[in-house]
């Protein structure tokens, strides 16, 4: 508690420096281990340095603060320290704010006001102290994971996605054909033939029993057009057709892996989405 560590991710240099200065004044014992300017660096530094706290700006170049938090929760090593407590920092984002309230996550509005930040610091100190209690240590990652699940709307088999206006306007009729173009040909792939989708940079790989295609879209955009009963997200980068799953098996460390009916691939389920696989 006395030597708590924190990471700041904020793309505007003045604001990052100021947050650091304010934290130093309000919480002198807190050590800022890194201050980064984009989401991907936040994820990478977060995994490497394993701080106790994360201050994440939402709108950042490359990867948003929300995406970084999700990725961090999915990739966080099991054997390591508990997940960092996350505080989102945002100028204006009513959708995100509603999601934070729902998930009981901490957030600070920009311009950051000193009194508000002081309250947040007090709450964080209390939470860190509570984590040192033996029964809390036993719970492991669960409380933070539950909060993030609530934040990303992962409930049962619902289509998760980060908060945003697009969620409210989910496409009325689900997509039936994937149109994958390669060269001068557009291949029509019925969604019923797709085994799973996998995010690959700016593309999505579409894997069927026979072959795979590349489509130029983001997995998030695609998800909004898919039938959430038919397609389940199992990882931030993987969406699988439920009918194509043969079995889900858990290894000794508790990690879930899916085997498919018509394909040799093994798909790993992130801890955010593991809840939907339970014996009946």
């Amino acid at each position, binding site marked *: 508690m006395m030597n708590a560590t924190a990471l700041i991710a904020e793309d505007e240099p003045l604001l990052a420096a100021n947050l650091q200065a304010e934290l130093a004044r309000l919480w002198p014992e807190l050590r800022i281990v890194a201050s980064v300017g984009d989401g991907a660096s936040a994820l990478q530094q977060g995994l490497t340095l394993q701080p106790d706290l994360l201050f994440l700006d939402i709108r950042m170049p490359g990867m948003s603060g929300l995406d970084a938090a999700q990725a961090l929760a999915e990739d966080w090593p099991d054997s390591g320290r508990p997940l960092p407590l996350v505080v989102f920092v945002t*100028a204006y984002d009513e959708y995100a704010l509603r999601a934070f309230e729902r998930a009981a996550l901490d957030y600070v509005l920009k311009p950051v006001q000193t009194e508000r930040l002081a309250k947040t610091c007090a709450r964080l100190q209390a939470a860190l102290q509570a984590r040192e209690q033996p029964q809390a240590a036993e719970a492991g990652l669960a409380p933070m994971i539950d909060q993030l699940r609530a934040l990303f709307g992962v409930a049962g088999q619902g289509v998760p996605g980060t908060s945003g206006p697009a969620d409210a306007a989910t496409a009325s009729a689900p997509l039936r054909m994937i149109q994958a173009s390669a060269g001068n040909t557009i291949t029509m792939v019925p969604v019923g033939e797709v085994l799973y989708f996998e995010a690959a940079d700016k593309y999505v790989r579409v894997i069927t029993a026979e072959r795979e295609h590349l489509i130029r879209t983001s997995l998030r955009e695609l998800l909004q057009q898919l039938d959430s009963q038919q397609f389940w997200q199992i990882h931030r980068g993987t969406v699988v057709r439920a009918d194509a799953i043969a079995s889900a098996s858990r290894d000794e460390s508790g990690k879930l892996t899916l085997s498919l009916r018509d394909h040799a691939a093994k798909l790993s389920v992130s801890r955010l989405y593991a809840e939907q696989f339970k014996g009946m």
Partner: protein
Amino acid sequence: MPTYRVVFSWLWRELRITVLVSLAATFLFGPFSDSTFVPNLIYTFTVALCIQALIEAGRYGLSASFMRRGAAPLSGMSPESVAVQRAWPGWGLMVPWIAMSAVVGYLGGHTLGDLLTGTHHAPLGILLNFQSLLPSLLPTFALAIGCTYFFYARGRLAATEAQAQAARRTAVENQLRLLVSQLEPHMLFNTLANLRVLIGQDPQRAQAMLDHLNGFLRATLDASRSDSHALSAEFARIGDYLELMQVRMGPRLTGTLDLPDELSSLPVPPLLLQPLVENAIKHGLEPSVAGGRIEVAARRDAQGLLLSVRDTGVGLGAVATHGSRFGMQQVRERLAALYGSAASLELTTPDDGLGGALAVVRIPVV
């Protein structure tokens, strides 16, 4: 307004017209009649009442049954204005209906008049007497058509007024949308956050930033009120915006403005380029981890004025978000409204290998 009051005011309006028409008819046709003033008034009143009731019933009835089968009412119009428009089925239907109303109304009104005065004038007897037929029926027709035209014109006037009102409302809505898009809360609060920090750290820079914010806000609010300003003013406002973004993005943003002196006094629509500059930053440079450059330039060629906004950001392939479409659409609409087909806006990927996007506005010089 409660329903009974609407109905009452409608009835009162119709009744006033009936009374006026009856009085006029009595005075006009009295000389042709062998009866005295009061019985004549009673007859004209009952006849006018019957004809008007028929015409009005037809006007509402026919147009209502037409509407049910016809096209949906225009969107953007209030229900009242649609109702006003609805109550006119067209002259093609109304002329036969008026003729029918005049004959039936005349006969009906005559019978009613007989009942009221307790006399018997044998309305059909009139048909045999050609001498009194013409002076009775012709004015009745004339009156019926006159009354109908009055209603028609009044309905048309109300519909035109409603349309003008709807157009005004759309214009105000557009203006508001423009304003909201320019005063994007995310931009505003982040700028204020930076300002708050600078006040403590570097008061002089804070003052400079506040001046730029002031210039930007004033220009945004004024843009909806004036039709044009000098190109130099346009570049100055874009300069304000870029300075604000510069403080926020730090070394990730480099901006250059290139305005040749001889073009600086040419008139342009206020803040025409603003949405393009905003898009270049929001969709091109902000999503890029490394940031980049933005260049705003003005050139003149034989065809007119060329204004370009170039960025070296993530490029157009990334995502065509709703925001960028709205900005582009907004500029296109303004250009079309002001210059018709003489102006254009093109968004392309530059071919110099540096990536990013290039928006070029071409407007005629008058």
